[in-house]
């Protein structure tokens, strides 16, 4: 695979910052708003947003993790079952404004499952979607994000990965493309 960095750590920080201010524009002081990260990789976006938002607003932001394994539409269509991750929603989402957060928006199927999974916890007033990367023109379902970190045009054969300082050692977005032989 050929590797190309499409967002370096400096811009990464700026993008996160911008997303925070966009969220504040809509959600004011977050009194009725909750960030929910989709497992496994959306939770890292939430961790960073929470840090920044709490610094800006000087108050605690309620956050949760949501695992969507059992709501996926590809059960029995894969070689192996997916090992579920932890869901951590120990608060009521009833009548709250929920911002679902994921790292990469691609086919939209994960978000569809995420919406189903979320509704098992109650009836939120409103649900929005924040994605750090939007692979546009690649949707299988009519799902679009309300907040986008970076929009990229990609091929199906390519892979986009959001990498984090605390896990991979550096904040960046990487595009992996198959090598073209000869």
């Amino acid at each position, binding site marked *: 695979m050929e590797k190309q960095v499409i967002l370096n750590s400096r811009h990464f920080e700026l993008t996160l910052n911008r997303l925070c201010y966009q969220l504040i524009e809509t959600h004011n002081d977050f009194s009725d708003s909750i960030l929910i990260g989709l497992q496994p990789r959306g939770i890292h976006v939430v961790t960073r947003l929470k840090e920044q938002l709490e610094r800006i607003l000087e108050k605690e932001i309620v956050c949760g993790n949501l695992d969507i394994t059992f*709501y996926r539409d590809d*059960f*029995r269509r894969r070689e192996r079952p*997916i090992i579920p991750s932890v869901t951590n929603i120990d608060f009521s989402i009833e009548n709250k404004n929920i911002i679902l957060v994921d790292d990469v928006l691609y086919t939209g199927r994960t978000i569809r499952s995420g919406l189903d999974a979320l509704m*098992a916890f109650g009836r939120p007033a409103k649900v929005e979607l924040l994605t750090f990367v939007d692979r546009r023109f690649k949707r299988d379902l009519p799902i679009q994000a309300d907040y986008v970190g970076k929009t990229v045009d990609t091929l199906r054969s390519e892979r986009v990965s959001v990498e984090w300082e605390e896990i991979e050692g550096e904040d960046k977005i990487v595009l992996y493309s198959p090598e073209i032989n000869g």
Partner: protein
Amino acid sequence: MDNLSVEHLTGIKDLTKEDIQLIFQTADSFKQVINRPIKKVPSLRDITIANLFFENSTRTRLSFELAEKRLSADVINFSAASSSVKKGETLIDTVNNILSMKVDLVVMRHPNPGAAKFLSERVNAKVVNAGDGTHEHPTQALLDAYSIRERLGSVEGKKVVIVGDILHSRVALSNIYCLQKLGAEVMVCGPTTLIPKYIHELGVKVEHNLRKALEWCDVANMLRIQLERQDIKFFPSLREYSMQFGLTKEILDSLDKEIIVMHPGPINRGVEITSDVADSKQSIILQQVENGVAVRMAVIYLLASKIERQ
């Protein structure tokens, strides 16, 4: 390791340690699910499950049915008492008739040891053994070990004594396999007549004195005396059994440590366990029942993921 090594769950004997750990890991997630306001996930929407009970059961059948429904599977129930089995139909014929209604997975309890394995080799569906005579009861052993893990953090290195009618108990055999695979030490305790002669060959300790057994263990799993399977008398009277092998609050309090008390149910209060022990904070009997649903959801989910799509 993210897939079971077996195609059916006929007994713990066939599972690897990794299989059991995978089931536990999956059950952790299902335990979260069944504590949500909406306790149901859509995973098995296109799966049909038949619960075939050729022997009486309340808890296990309800637990399986609930597990299946919480996975959104379609469920049909069958009990031998009200069926053609009474009219002389063979097991394979009965099951094949049910399978021709497009059933993907069969949960079966049967009075004959080996019935689940026999079936799994002959029908085109996944089979889960819900108890086959005095042989195995794998989901009970899984939920027992899961409950120990939940309470004590892990099963490895723990000492578990199984007390009571070991001879007629499928729970005992499955528990021995399961606990040993997870690295626990197992002891059986009961009257000589109710301990199988060669059980030490499974690597378990044998003890006939309840107090000694309890002093040794971290967990005591109290089994019911299976009078319905006993065609001869194995001990003089229930009263005598209860005096020697019944777990009372006095014995429990006189130990220099707090052990955990388990029971697979149904309990005969005042025989193998007194009421105050069954209801004490050391007892995890009701947690076992709750965990039973999560563990069965995990088993069915993992086996169903292996059903081929048409």
